[in-house]
Structure formats: C-alpha cells, structure tokens
C-alpha cells in the first residue's frame, strides 16, 4: 500500500461511484470510438483501438471490477493510462474532474469483502460530500492480470 500519497487525481464515474487514478498515470482522455474486438482475450478486454497510429488494448473497467456492462452513451470515455505493460485504454461511464487530495484525506479502505473489486483499490479519498475510490493502476492493468484471465476460443473450455 505504498501508493497512498497526496496529490492530484483524475476522477471518473462507474455506476454511481466516484473513482480516481493518479493524474501522473493518465495520458489522455478520448471519446469512445469504434473498438475492434480481439478473439482469445479476457472478457474485460473490449478490443483494440488506434490512438494516433498506436494500437492500444481497451479494458472495460466495469467488467474488470465485476460490474454489469452497460450500453455506451455520450458520456462514455476512454481514459488512456500508462501502465507497466504500456498504454491501456480504460472505458469508464463518465469523466469528472481533477481533484487535489491531501495526505490526511486518504485512507486505507476497510475490508468490505468483495474480492474482485477490492483487489485493485489502493485507498479511499475523502472529500466533504463524497468518497473517491482510488485504483491501483499498476496492479489492475499488469500483464499478469491479462494473462491470468486469458480468454479461450471455445465456450466449453
């Protein structure tokens, strides 16, 4: 849990919750575009997109955290994150704002039992009126995570 430090975080929405990632890990934010699905990839991998000549994998964060998938709308965005394996596009419901969190506004999350979602939470950020769930980007988008949940070609397998 070395990631708990004050700083600027980009906040975005999933369901009705606020999430945050360190701004230093964010490369850019794009509107949702056409995503090319790729066989034999984990379910949460939406496919690949072209970002100015580079091919990036796109992860649906809802599915990654074990939530149900929703139809994209005008607010759906792809946040391009700098992970260890390279740039990864992350589909989120909507992007909110950049917030400044002081060290005393950040807290280790209490154990709440939900394994899938909890695994990638590094901390909770507290603001007057809301709680921001801070994601451990390196852990969530590590190469290991992709390989571990590698998809198969056949439904029965």
């Amino acid at each position: 849990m070395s990631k708990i430090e004050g700083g600027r975080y980009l906040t975005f929405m999933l369901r009705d919750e606020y999430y945050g990632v360190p701004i230093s890990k964010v490369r850019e934010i794009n509107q949702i575009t056409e995503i090319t699905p790729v066989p034999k990839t984990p379910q949460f991998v939406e496919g690949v997109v072209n970002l100015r000549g580079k091919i990036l994998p796109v992860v649906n964060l809802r599915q990654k955290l074990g939530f149900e998938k929703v139809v994209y709308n005008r607010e759906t965005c792809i946040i391009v994150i700098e992970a260890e394996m390279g740039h990864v596009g992350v589909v989120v419901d909507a992007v909110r704002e950049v917030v400044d969190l002081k060290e005393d506004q950040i807290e280790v999350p209490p154990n709440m039992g939900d394994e899938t979602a909890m695994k990638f939470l590094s901390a909770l950020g507290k603001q007057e009126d809301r709680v921001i769930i801070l994601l451990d980007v390196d852990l969530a988008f590590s190469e290991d995570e992709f390989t571990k949940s590698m998809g198969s070609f056949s439904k029965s397998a």
Partner: protein
Amino acid sequence: MSDDDFLEELKRDFLNEALFMMEQYEESMLALESSQEPQEHIGRIFRVAHSIKGGAAAVGFEDLSHFAHKAEDLLTLLRVTPEKINTEIITLFLSVGDQFKLRLTQLQTTRDASWDVEDLETQLLKWIKNFQSTEASAVSLADCEVPVSSEAGAEDITNYELLAQLEADIKSTEQAAAKPVVEDFFKPQQIEELKSQQKEATPEVVAQPASVLMEDKVPLIQPKSTTGGPAEGAHKKAVVVENTILKVDSLRVDAVLDVVGEIVVLKNQLLHSDVVSQGENQRLTFIVDQLDKSIRDLYEKTLGIRMTPLRSLFTKLQRTVRDVSVKLDKPVDLQLLGEETEVDRSVFELLGDPLMHMARNAMDHGIESKAERLQNGKPEMAKLTIAAKQVGASVIIEISEDGRGIYRDKVLKKAIEKGLVPAHLKPEELSDDQVYQFLFAPGFSTAEKVTDLSGRGVGLDVVKSNIEKAKGQVRIRSNPGKGSTFEILIPLTTSITDGIVVAISGQRYMIPIHSIREIVQFRDAEVTQVANLGRVLKIRNKLTPVIDFRQTLENSTFLDGKNIKLIEKSDAQKTYIVLELSSGLSALPVDEVLGQSQVVAKPLQVGHPVPEFSGAATLGDGRTILILEPNALAQSKVGAA
C-alpha cells in the same frame, strides 16, 4: 559502375557502419565501469572490435584492422577473466575507441593522413603479456595468442595482393588505358603520377600504400594535404563528403509513420465531411483535393523508407568473398540470386553482419583448400551460392557451399568439451539440427587457428543474436564431405503488410497477400465433410482442407455482448480464400471480400500473445483491423477440433 567506384562505395559504407558501431562500443565501455555483470558489455565491445577488424581488412584499411586485432586480443582475455577489468584498462579502451573514431572520421575525408597508435598498441601488448603470464591456466592460449610478427607479415602480403588486385582494376578502367604498367606501387612519385591520372577514384589507391608505409615506419607521402589533425579532419568532412547516408533510428521512422498514418485518417475524415463532400465552396474543394494528393504521396513515400532491396548487401558480400578467395587461395564460383528481394530497413540492418560472417565462415571453414578438394575428387573451383527469396511472410536467405560439410561427431565432441550439452540430454539422441545449433553458442569454434577472418567463435554467435533480434531463425543443413547450407529465415511481419480485407462473422480482418493463392466460390453443397476431421473442398480435382475460423469465432466468447451482427447463412455461393501455408493449401471461408489495402502492421498488444494474429493495423478510415496469421490459424483449427 567501375570497380574503383565500387570499392569506394564499400569503403564509405564500412566507415559509416563502423562509426555507428563505435557508439555502441563507447556506451558499453562506459556501462562496464559501473556494471555488476561485465560479461555482456565485454561481449558487445568485443563484437564491435571484431567487426571493425574484419570489415576494415575487407575494404583494405589494414592499419585499422591490425589495431582492432590487437584490441580484440586483449578483449579475448578479458572475456574469460572479467574480474581483471580495472579503471586503467577501461581508460585504455576508451582511448582505443577514440583512436578508432578519429581514424574512421579521418578516412571519411582523406585516405592519406597519418595515424599514430604505437603508444596504445604497446599498452595493449603490455596488458596482454601481463595477463598471459599470470592467467595462463585460465585461458587456452592457443585460442587467443596471436604471434605478432608473423601476423604483420601476413598482412603485408595481403596488402600487396590487394594492391595487385587494385592495380588490375585500375588497368581495366578507361583512364588507366594509357598509363604505363606500374611495377612497384610503393614508389612515391608513381603514386603521385597515379593520382594525377585518376580523378575521383584515386584516393584509396593512394591510401593503400600510405597505410602500409606507415606500418613500416617509412615517412608518409602526402601528395596534397599536410597532415590533418583530428579537428581539421572533422572540419573537412562537412565540406567534402557529399551524398551522405543518413542513418536514422528506425524508431524515429516509425514515429513519423505513426503521425503520417494519423494525418491520412484525418484527411479522409475531412474528405468525407459534409462541408467538403457537398462541394459548395469551390476553393475549399480544390484545396482539399490537392491536400489529398499530397498526403497520399507522403504516405507512400514514408512507407517506402523502410523497404530496402538486398542489392547493396549482396554487393558487399561479393566483395568480401572475392577478397577472401584471393587471400586464402580458394577459387570460388559465387552465385548471387534474388538481390532484388526487399526487406524492412530494420531487418536489412540486422542482416548485414550475420551475412558477412556467414559468407566468411563458408569461405574459411566450409570450403576446403585447393589441394584438399582435388584430393577428394572435387573440382578445384568451389561453389558458393547466396540466394534470397520471399516465401509467404518470410524472407529466406541461403548460403550454400560444396565444401567439406559439418561433421556431427566433431561438433558434438567440442560441445561436450565446452560443457554446452545439458546433462539431461543424451548426446547420441540429439538431432543433427540440435547438434549444429551448438555452433552458434558463444565462444564455440572448431577452427584450429585464429585468422583475422573467423575462427574466434564470435562470428556465429553474432549471427544468431542478430537474426534473433529480427525474430528470425538460422538453420543448418549439411552433408559431410559434400557441403553445407546455412539458412536464415526472417519474418516480414514487422514491416508493411499488403493484404486483402475480408469480413468474417461481421468483423473485418486482413489476410496478407503473399499467403493468398486464389479466391474461389463454392456452394455449401459442394463442400464435403470428412468424418469428424473437418471439411474439404475440391479445387481443380485437388482436395483442400477448409479452415473453419468462422465457426471458431462464433463459438468463442469474445464477441458476447459486443453487438456484432452475424451474417445469415444462405445456400448462395460462399467465398473461400485459398491460402498457401507451410503445410500446403487450405481454404478459409469468408463472408465477403472488401478490398485490398497496404498497412503498417503494429504488434497486437493485449497483455499476452495471440498467435492467430500477426498484428493489428489502422485502415484509411481510421478503423483498426486485425491481421490474420494464416499458419497459426490452421493450427488453431486443429486445436479446436
């Protein structure tokens, strides 16, 4: 092209390449100082010295080659005992590197400046002696000690031979037609005379005797310029060298390609936007039209930057083989085939060293001496063939000779001696190919003596590491007593892919054009199910297996919830792409053929490899498309069955 121009071109290429390599040399040298694992850096430095030695000798820069040989001698010792490396040695090697650079830069502008490395050479020799006396047990002396005096003598002979050859070359050119026969090249006034007769082609002719004379400690002849210091030499370079070769990191070219690709996409969006396509503003329409043309041109030219025919590499090989042939007195009939084959620039650069090493290796170790050939009932004139061809998604380059071949037992014995055979493997159970692969192990060399061509066991090591960098393979076939073939197989997938865009199960995919034999149409009724092995098509009376990729896709989970519409199956004719695979022909059913396109293939990065796709690319309309890898596709069919 006259032989003089040709030699000049080779020299230029060598100088450019060597200067480029010196960057690596210095980098590794500096890294060595702080590194915990010196072995890797020494290996790199050693390879640079080795390449300079070989390359310089091939184009006739004997002093450079000689000096590099000395540096290599010390490096050989250090490779075995890296713990001996100290700051003093690193400093010495940095000065050695400076001298290399100085000389290389000098030679780019003038071939008759002096170069004094006597002091450094003495220092190198001092360390070599020092190590040899203390470390005699650790190093196999036979492998690394080079008798200095006889070596120098040998080089003089070579030089003389080279000169004799040059002389012949010169005679054959028109300017030289009227020139009196030059008996002795070492006489200054005759060099002057030559110089005045030859126009641009002269410098290297003068340079040859100059370098020899320098070794002999005879005062130098400098027909025009006074001795240029390093600064002066560098200054001159900027003025004199025209038509320079631009050496650009391929990553930069890729970056430009990325941006250009994006411009193409944006241009297409502009072209199809309402404002432009309605054509109400004539001026705007005109500008966009012109822009369209220019951008297409730009795109094509950028794509072209990366592709290079093998021709220039082949000419270098030709020269090397010729020189070695003269030097070793092994007459050879060299055949070069397929020099028009184009490879990606990055592949081209990685191929240079390995091919050179392999050609030298073939001449030095593969082909026997004249006497030995006659004794074995072979013609005196050996045969060496270097052939390149594109096969499917790869380029295959074969270097074959009719020499002595590789004896499995000899290789195996040496491999066991060197401890290269893993304990759990039984030597007698290894396949020939496995045994031959030991030849590529670092430090392996079955040659008994060290020459300045090959025989230190680095050559093949370099070959393998370079080929692997290009994601290729090297294979050896050999017939003891009859000859050997070294085969390099390098994929083209890193470069531009020309392909056909098809729709399968509502998705678009690209099939590389070189794996497509033909496109045919069949009704479902004409496809035969063969037990549970799969389906076959009868194309011109030949049974062709069908790759049921569509079925595989539709059975898979990847499209679930991704709003993809599948095309209704009907009894109408279906289109099949007949693919040329390593296992033969196969037919891939597709929904529709959408067109042809040329794209820059990018690695498909989704956290783990998906062998069915060689990469992804962006089409002109900005959409991303996956490129199918037909061979893996056929495999995946087998896996699913």
